[in-house]
């Protein structure tokens, strides 16, 4: 287990993680400050930002003190100098909204747009939060668990259209 960088917001809940040194569970308010602390501590690269929809999940193992919400935003940071990874899992709320990391890592621009497009997470402070993979006029966010898959649109006269 690594030590938290000194500037990291307190209190911080940590747990061991598969494929990374440690998972951090900041609150939405702590999220940006925590990532900034890691960045100052030598985590040069933000490998990945993605979102997970836990709607209907039978229950995930979270450390004590973390209040699970439907959406979780998962950020994987990589330190090249230490050759270590750290995973940041922020409970993004049932109407997901977290701060954008764009000012820290400009490279998250596309990844956050993807999470917005497919999962509907709002990243506040993102310069151009538009759809990236789906067509512009698409309704809904396909990777959400309540989004119908393989649905055949049936058109009834006078009825509102599909989607």
């Amino acid at each position: 287990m690594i030590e938290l960088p000194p500037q990291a917001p307190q209190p911080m809940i940590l747990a061991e993680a598969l494929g990374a040194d440690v998972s951090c569970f900041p609150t939405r308010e702590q999220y940006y400050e925590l990532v900034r602390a890691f960045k100052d501590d030598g985590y040069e690269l933000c490998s990945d930002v993605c979102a997970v929809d836990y709607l209907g999940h039978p229950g995930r193992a979270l450390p004590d003190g973390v209040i699970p919400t439907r959406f979780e935003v998962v950020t994987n940071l990589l330190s090249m100098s230490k050759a270590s990874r750290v995973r940041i899992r922020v409970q993004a709320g049932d109407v997901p909204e977290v701060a954008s990391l764009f000012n820290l890592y400009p490279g998250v621009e596309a990844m956050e747009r993807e999470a917005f497009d497919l999962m509907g997470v709002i990243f506040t402070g993102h310069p151009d939060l538009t759809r990236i993979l789906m067509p512009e006029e698409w309704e809904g966010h396909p990777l959400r668990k309540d989004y119908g898959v393989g649905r055949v649109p049936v058109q009834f006269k006078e009825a509102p259209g599909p989607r």
Partner: protein
Amino acid sequence: MSEPTVRAASRADILAAETSEGAQELQYRTATPSGELGREVGAVLRLEGHTLDPRDIDVDRPDDETMIINMGPSHPSTHGVLRLMLELDGEFVLRTKPVIGYLHTGMEKTGEELSYVQGATNVTRMDYLSPIINELGFSMAVETLLGLQVPERATWIRMMMSELNRMASHLVWMATNGMDVGSTSMMIYGFRERELILAFFEKTAGLRMNLNYVRPGGVAADLPDGWQDDVTVICDTIEERTYEYDQLLTGQPIFRQRMVGVAPLMAEEALALGATGPLLRSTGVAWDLRRTMPYLAYDQVDFDVIVGTYGDNFDRYAIRLNEIRESVRIVRQCVERMPAGDYRSQDPKVTPPPRARIGESMEALIHHFKLFTEGFHVPAGEVYSAVESPRGELGCYLVSDGGPKPWRLHVRAPSFVNLQAVPLLMRGGSVSDAITVISTVDPIMGEVDR
């Protein structure tokens, strides 16, 4: 008769409305906020403490001095369906905005509907030039969640096939890059050499692309009889041919003029943009997951991490050419040191029984039936596993709810992230340089759009 004119005009309005892509499109400067404008010129270093230099984005430049044009999505040099919107000042590129999604088929969503047994068939279609490495990233994530130890021979087979795949992928890159800069012979040579590798894949796995060869628990089939000879011939041929490429391209004056010093990238910029793979190594950062965070048996073989200096097109070319040679070195060591043993785990919950056992053993029949109908259950949890694909860090974030299908399968596609370097690399260059930039960033659209 004024009516036809009016009708034609209204039709034009409708057409314009129908074809407008809205906010994804590159807008005029006056309609673009400065943060977005900075992104479109590739000003990545405006991190905290830095402010955006107004000269960088030319905020005062009137819109009628420049021209916004569309390159792609079906342009021959965009390597698939990449669409770039360029703002041009004459011949020079000011702003670039990649518009992607034309190949989006919802593969991450599909991955949630496929069992772990079937999952490799899905991920293998993402980066269609390096299917084995995609399967490897997925399989390693599943195995970590299962806590499954893969036999040593399977590990070495995986490593050898990954390196053969890396050679094939870089050879296609050499070919298409040659095509982009006008060397059509390179196009033919690259595909000719790649054919040797694909023929070996076909002999081993039965397919040329999208192999579904690496699976959770091991690999699908053992190496065919006489594989050492096949692989040695491939190594000898390709190594010899790389020196022919040197003669054909490396010192060729026209090629060098298109590549040397064009579209340089700094290490800080590459890191800020999250770029990995040859794009990052060309800037002098010696970061290769095979060396720095070893997986499989990469810590037991001898190879060099190829690093560039200037981060220009030529460095990216040279890195890929030399990585083919390094892969040849690794494959040769695999041939020498390939251990004997099982090519897949013997855990009956994960690996299907041999065909002959099904007719004589009830348990084997049950296991076979369960595996291919329901699939195996994976303990609940989440994992991020990363491998070095020919394009950079290929990550697989997998969430399991304890069932036979992934709860969430997310693939960190290196091309998707690397593509963000395109606006920065293209800024200030000419349109013909833009072609080489797309080429040397090497995006695979199947992986970008997933």
